[in-house]
């Protein structure tokens, strides 16, 4: 009755395709939080892509999520641009987080100019990371930003209100911070399924040894 076929035979005859034949190359952009890295399919921020961080409120640790990455990039000589931040970045706290202030550039822009300035910075390849705070960003705008990040091989992060979570987005990674209870949810991650369980927030900070040296990207200084 049952027709037994060797699995190898099927593979050889190309009748059967093995999904994801090799593991994806690990991201060279670890988040600095080993727990989050293991939850993400690439093991870090998606490279050359736009990520979204969705926030219900200000002041719930959203910068803490980014500071390890910004510190790593600026210490390697990369330039980081902040486009249209909602408040003044307080230098003492940024410096304490390890961010090299002289590699940080703040771009003040009217809300309508924020997407434009972000696109310019992402596309230029002059920045290692670009953080933006668009007040209103439609699907088309985000798609442009995603494309610009791909073109410029740049790490792009858009900080948006949590209400945007209900809309689809072309961003490669979408994280939502929640308070009461404080937790971090991965809404979408390209190349894998989002973890079913939310992560605790604030994330436990791992020991530095968990990040291999080879992950530190040296960005040549073009000043």
């Amino acid at each position, binding site marked *: 009755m049952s027709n037994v076929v060797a699995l190898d035979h099927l593979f050889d005859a190309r009748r059967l395709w093995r999904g994801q034949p090799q593991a994806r190359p690990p991201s060279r952009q670890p988040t600095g939080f080993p727990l989050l890295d293991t939850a993400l399919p690439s093991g870090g921020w998606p490279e050359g892509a736009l990520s979204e961080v969705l926030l219900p409120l200000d002041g*719930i640790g959203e910068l803490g999520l980014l500071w390890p990455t910004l510190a790593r990039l600026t210490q390697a000589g990369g330039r980081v641009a902040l486009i249209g931040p909602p408040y003044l970045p307080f230098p003492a706290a940024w410096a304490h987080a390890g961010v090299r202030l002289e590699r940080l550039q703040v771009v003040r822009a009217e809300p309508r100019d924020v997407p434009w300035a972000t696109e310019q910075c992402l596309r230029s390849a002059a920045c290692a990371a670009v953080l933006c705070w668009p007040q209103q960003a439609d699907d088309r705008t985000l798609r442009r930003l995603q494309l610009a990040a791909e073109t410029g091989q740049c790490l792009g992060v858009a900080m948006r209100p949590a209400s945007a979570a209900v809309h689809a987005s072309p961003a490669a990674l979408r994280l939502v911070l929640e308070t*009461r209870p404080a937790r971090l949810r991965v809404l979408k991650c390209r190349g894998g399924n989002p973890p079913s369980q939310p992560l605790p927030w604030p994330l436990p900070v791992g020991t530095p040894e968990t990040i291999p040296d080879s992950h530190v990207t040296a960005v040549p200084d073009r000043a």
Partner: protein
Amino acid sequence: MLWACILLPQLALDGVLRRHADPDEPLVLVDGPVQRRVLRAVNAAAKAQGLRAGLPLATAQAICARFATVEHDPAETTRWHDFLAAWAYRYGAQVSRQMPASLLVEVEASFRLFGPWPRMEALLREDLVALGFRHRIALAPNPWAARALAGVHDGLAITHDAPLKQALGQLPVERAGLPPEAADSLRRMGLRRLVQVYALPRAALGRRVGTDTLDQLDRLTGALATPLDCYQPPDHFESRIEFNYEVGATGQLLFPLRRMTGDLAAYLAGRDGGVQRFVLRLEHERGAATEVPVGLLAPERDAGMLFELARGRLDLVQLAAPVRALQLIARELPPFVPAGRDLFDVRPQQAVPWEQLRERLRARLGDEAVHGLSIRADHRPERAWRDHGDSAEAPPLPRPGWLLPRPIPLRERGLRILAGPERVESGWWDGDVRRDYYVVETAAGQRAWAYCPVGEREGFMLHGWFA
């Protein structure tokens, strides 16, 4: 020495055409007294309609129904001649614009920099095509021969005396740059080519045509060396375009602006400099001109970048009156050091260096829009923040990541004090500050940096967010 002659057969016309948005429309240059206007030069489209130089304007109007006429302006032509001399200066230290409608450049000294003549000739032609000038080029061991040969040939390159003699011999007598009456009398003697002239006994020839002609014949062969006036590039750049119609929108200025910034870049490359500040002057029919200053943080000379930055500034201008002329003035031309770049630096396409990106952002968002951050040694938070300069030591924590531009009342119930108070007392010398700072948590889970008057625990003012 080897001299290249760049002959510009329609310099006046090209100067006019290059600023016309559609050079394919029939266009003629006219001059002469009002009663007897004569076509001075015609473009290809006008030629196709049957017009040619030398035709009276009335006749031309009878032949062709519609063509644009532009007044021939000798001063304008001189300016273009100067501009091209400034451009040619990049290819050789000795440039002369002494002879009309031609440029003479000593090129042999530049071969080590630009490569052998065929490659250099290609560079010259490439530039001239990009700038929009028709040209003929010839190379010869002396400038006079180069000029004479360029009048007949295009692309001829002679580096030695023997072939030079032969090429000169084949020149028609009337094309050798001899005084007109001498050329005329030689022609009447039945002499058609220079080889026949050189064959004559010198003394007898001198008695017939005069020493001026003999000198010119000697200059052609190189036997007589006459120094040329060499061109010295000026220390500033000015360019002006007058419109024969009124321009009501800045968008219409973009085409002339692109030409001007391109010219500026060509000029800068010639003197190996950059530009840090320039002014666009928009002249109106009456009233003061609108000045649009374009300032850069560092000298630049890339044509595309200069155009983009000038365009960014121009876009912000609200025109009060129609524009009749556009002028670009650059007086500060500091030395330019190109940004170093790594040979093995892998860069994505469309990559833009940071300096250029920064200027682009500043051009659209405003001069103050892009800035860095640094710490200032002051206990008062609002003064511990500044947007540039050297950083002082960071004060002991806790400090929030976000600072509000000015503190606002924190009207919320259920605040939980997590840390504090930290007393900030400072600035008695310029506006005293005495506050107790707390780290408080709101009911929604936000962590705020807020302060009260000293000794109190209510009336919180929100000053930052721990984000």
